[in-house]
């Protein structure tokens, strides 16, 4: 097995399993979606993933279900039949990906409503139908009562997968080139020490593109997905701590419970496919400029634990990002976990993501605010922005200026907002101009205070209305 082999190339080129399509090769269109079955807390869960940027080694120990598997004995799967009945395909090229995203939803046992369906499909692009018939097919078939070969075999599959999970280290290749998936801290420490030049891989939602788009040669890959110690979500009364290899999907519930805005932000990070693979830790560790979570985590006061061998150190998240593409991480050092404090009673949080398209897009501006309140007085503030500088960054001057202002002092907020132009000198690019970024950064600051001072978000937002998120 070549270390860089993607699951999609394996399926199409080696197995000649060609129902699964390549649409973009970067995990944005979903045509290559397959369903991955794995055990989460002992229970079998199917998740959609983008096969184009998933490395073959990452599916070790998991069940891969592709569109080629679905119809059996000449009978269409209920998802497939619903898609035919509702005229859900036109050119048909995106269709296998839609079917497999819906297959995962079908197996989840959730009785889907429209919002659930469009969330499930945010990572599947269709250029022909306008989606209405696909959504209808999903509503007709994903009724919460899975009844197919996979649901019937659930117990058996769980046993098989549990049997594969033997806690052993995986190493394919030799010292010059390998795909390794260590299972223990010791094995990982040894590997990183011996191969400080190896690429640490968690979800491959970014590294995958180094391979498929930048055509880099990555000879040595250390995959963190088998590291139990890095896959834990720990929740205490005052914080959520995520192991670095926890996926967005696994983190969603615990992190989202901190605040509805954070839940909404997580819903809008990538797509179901991206969140099933991508990890919060990986997103932070490679300092990807397209990280939309860090500003929110910085505003909340998050802290990283870094580990090299057995030596650990803590660093405030905002201090980890040194410059564009440069992080406070030594060769061989790994991000072990991120600790996200929960909100205290006197703290109010707001977070906004500005994009051209609401779902599965990368922000032009991301703004996150945590105000500590003393009655109607702002006792202190943590404010962080993405898209306004080369790294996610706190608005130090604005934080100082807003301190001690009243929630009723709109004129004062406006003055404080002027400090944003001292905190940031954004650049213009294909996502937005510098002017727009500055104007919007300011507008979001005012919006956050407007909301916190009492305005209902149904009057201030076209998306992510908190009252609706609260209502579930």
């Amino acid at each position, binding site marked *: 097995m070549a270390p860089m082999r993607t699951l999609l190339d394996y399926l199409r080129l080696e197995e000649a399993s060609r129902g699964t399509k390549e649409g973009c090769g970067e995990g944005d269109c979903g045509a290559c979606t397959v369903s991955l079955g794995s055990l989460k807390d002992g229970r079998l869960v199917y998740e959609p993933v983008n096969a184009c940027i998933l490395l073959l080694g990452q599916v070790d120990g998991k069940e891969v279900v592709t569109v080629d598997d679905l119809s059996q004995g000449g009978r269409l799967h209920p998802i497939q039949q619903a898609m035919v009945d509702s005229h859900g395909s036109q050119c048909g090229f995106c269709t296998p990906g839609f079917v497999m995203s819906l297959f995962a939803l079908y197996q989840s046992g959730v009785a889907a409503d429209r919002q659930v369906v469009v969330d499930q499909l*945010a990572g599947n692009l269709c250029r022909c139908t306008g*989606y209405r018939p696909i959504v209808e097919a999903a509503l007709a078939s994903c009724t919460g009562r899975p009844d197919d070969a996979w649901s019937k075999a659930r117990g058996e599959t769980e046993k098989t997968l549990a049997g594969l999970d033997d806690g052993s280290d995986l190493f394919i290749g030799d010292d010059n080139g390998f795909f390794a998936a260590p299972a223990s801290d010791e094995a990982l420490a040894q590997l990183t020490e011996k191969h400080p030049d190896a690429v640490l891989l968690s979800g491959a939602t970014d590294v995958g593109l180094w391979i498929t788009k930048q055509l880099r040669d990555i000879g040595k890959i250390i995959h963190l997905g088998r590291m139990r110690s890095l896959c834990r979500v720990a929740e205490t009364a005052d914080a959520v701590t995520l192991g670095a290899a926890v996926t967005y999907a696994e983190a969603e519930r615990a992190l989202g419970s901190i605040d509805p805005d954070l839940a909404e932000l997580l819903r809008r990070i990538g797509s179901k496919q991206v969140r099933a693979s991508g990890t919060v830790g990986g997103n932070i560790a490679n300092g990807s400029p397209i990280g939309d979570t860090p500003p929110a985590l910085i505003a909340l006061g998050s802290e990283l634990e870094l580990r090299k061998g057995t030596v650990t150190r803590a660093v405030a998240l905002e201090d980890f990002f040194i410059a564009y593409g440069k992080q406070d991480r030594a060769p061989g050092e790994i991000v072990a976990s991120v600790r996200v404090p929960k909100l205290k009673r006197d703290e109010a949080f707001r977070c906004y993501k*500005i994009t051209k398209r609401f779902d599965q897009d990368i922000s032009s501006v991301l703004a996150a605010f945590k105000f500590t309140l003393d009655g109607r007085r702002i006792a202190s503030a943590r404010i962080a922005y993405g898209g306004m500088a080369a790294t996610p960054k706190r608005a130090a001057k604005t934080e100082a200026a807003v301190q001690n202002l009243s929630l009723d002092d709109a004129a004062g907020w406006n003055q404080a907002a002027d400090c944003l132009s001292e905190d940031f000198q954004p650049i213009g690019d*294909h996502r937005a101009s510098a002017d*727009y970024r500055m104007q*919007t950064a300011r507008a979001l600051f005012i919006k956050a205070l407007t909301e916190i001072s009492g305005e209902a978000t149904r009057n201030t937002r*076209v998306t992510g209305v908190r009252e609706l998120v609260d209502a579930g």
Partner: protein
Amino acid sequence: MPAEVKRFTTETVGLALAHDSAALHVQGRAIYIDDMREPEGTLHVAPGYASEGAKGRITRCDLDAVRNSPGVVAVLTAADIPGVNDCSPAMGDDPIFAEDEILFHGQVVFAVVAGTHDQARRAARRARIEIAKDPAAITVEDALEQGTPDVLPPYEFRRGEPEKRIAAAKMRLSDSFHVGGQEHFYLEGQVAFAMPEEAGGMTVYSSTQHPSEVQHCVAKMLGVADAFVTCECRRMGGGFGGKESQAAQWAALAALGAHKTGRPVKCRLDRDDDMIMTGKRHDMRIDYDAAFDKTGRLTAVDASLLSRCGYSADLSLGVNDRAMFHSDNAYYYPAVSIESRRLRTNTVSNTAFRGFGGPQGMMLAERMMDAIAHRLALDPLHVRKRNFYGPKRDRTPYGMKVTDNIIAEVVAELEKTSDYYARREAIKDFNAKNRILKKGLALTPVKFGISFTLIHLNQAGALVHLYTDGSVHLNHGGTEMGQGLYIKVAQVVAEEFGITPDRVKITATTTGKVPNTSPTAASSGSDLNGMAAKEAASQIKKRLIAFAEREWQVAPDQIRFEKGRVIIANQSMSLGELAKRAHQARIQLSATGFYATPNITWNRDKVKGKPFFYFAYGASCSEVTIDTLTGEMRVDRVDILHDVGRSLNPAIDLGQIEGGFVQGMGWLTTEELVFDKEGRLRTHAPSTYKIPCASDVPADFRVKLFASPGNLANTIYRSKAVGEPPLMLALSVFSAITDAIAALKPGTAPPLEAPATPEAILKAVKAMSA
């Protein structure tokens, strides 16, 4: 209104049948070109281009590292082409490989043939190409400023002297705005597979809307006669105009690779390369002056459409002509001048895209309606209706009389079913109460001319075989890109024989069966190919009837083909039984059919004639909410009423309407093409170029077919073309956003530009409060 359409009934035509490949699509068993099992020894070709530079002489082209890259079998340049180095549709100005100079960033300079797709792509990156950069014209403004020669001469429609009327008018406005381009984003990228045949022949499987053009391009490139090249296409994973002329270059690369190596060669573009190297919808700057009266009725329009064509002509003649043909949309312009400039820029050559310039032209019309209404503080719908074509106001700017106008009826019905006026009041109320959020509402019409304006393209051929078991083999010149053409034509043929469509075997479009075809474009697929296939089937049927008359001594009116049986006087037999008897009697059971659209003329030089066989109509009503702090926008509800005549297949037509609308909505809202100053496309992947996704479509989306008695023009079963017209229904979204912004300052027309991204909306919002 003219006489009613004669009544008729059908068995199969008009049924809401599933797409013929639906069951294959959902199983992943529909075979696209990249899914075909490669013959042994298949190689892969990838194009290469200069990483820097949009215009300039090539000063260095070092391909040694490419040649030495693992797996490389051959490197191709212009010098390897035995015939003509051109893949243009007409003008001879699109080199397959750039030779001495680069005219846009991403222009192909060489191609590399290797053992695998990955090896070819990796090798292609190793070229060292240097360009002596000249100043490049990237935007329309650059081209105007630099005075680059236009790709094609300007063209004008004129009636009267609008300039004089405008100068003398009490009420007038003068405006200029930009309309963005659009990437097709077909989910299946450009792909072709070439198989070398004996004696210099070549078979090319191409994902193309125009197999004949691919055939001609490959033959010309190889320097062989057309008859030596066959091009076949079973289906495309989406086309939208992007595979009309743009498929040829990749087919040519595959064919050249196959010619050079003697082995089968596949060319499949990586998505980013596809977006960088292939043309898009023309973006335009539109300048206009208009005069109107106090009721909002236009008295004169003087407009110019300044179009970014890119580095070569491609299909810019037809596209920009069609923009002019639709600059009136459904409105009468008493005195008018519509001028079109086809500007040359150092960007990829823009091309066909669903609507073919029509949407850009209609933007002018709707922009004017909104601007007049907001200026006069009138309801934009009133202004629209004041300006509709009507009795004595029925001549288009190009002189054709509109004789099938139903826009007033369509709009009247939608006005009612969408509850327009009650919602108008509710929105006023909402806007009065809300400081940050504003709502807007708009109901806009569509009138779209059907026929290729290049008249000779309005023809089609078909080939039908009846086998002796009663099954039918169907072939025609139209291609399937998801629009459901194949099932519609199969329904027509099934109807003719009185059989169910599953007895009709649909086969891949190939230049070997039906030659000299037109592109599947201009919404014409089912109009043209449906008629041609009906004609072919009807010939066979006539022979069978004549045979039955002789054989069973019955009168022709005693013979009927229905419900899968043939009724001959008092006996009934299967079509297969009759076919077998006819075959034994040596009756030919195969026929070709041909159709040419009647009664259309167009003299482009004299601006005279009737270029359209008929018009398709529709209307849509959209409601949106904008955030005046950030420019974010949500579409709340959409109502559509669209005229497809008598539908050949309502399920397929509904799919075209909904899909077209959503694609148009993307064009006008989230889809933004950004070129930097160096001429590099910065939005060359779905990570940066955002087509609508499922959540962008409003939950409240009500789409209905207009209850039509049938097309007044004698089309196939009185249906109407549906491929392109619905895209322009999305103009209501843009107008609704304009309406929402207008709420900030009544009496002022918002200067909104398309696409209405959050940034564009915020800019217009700020301009209103400035």
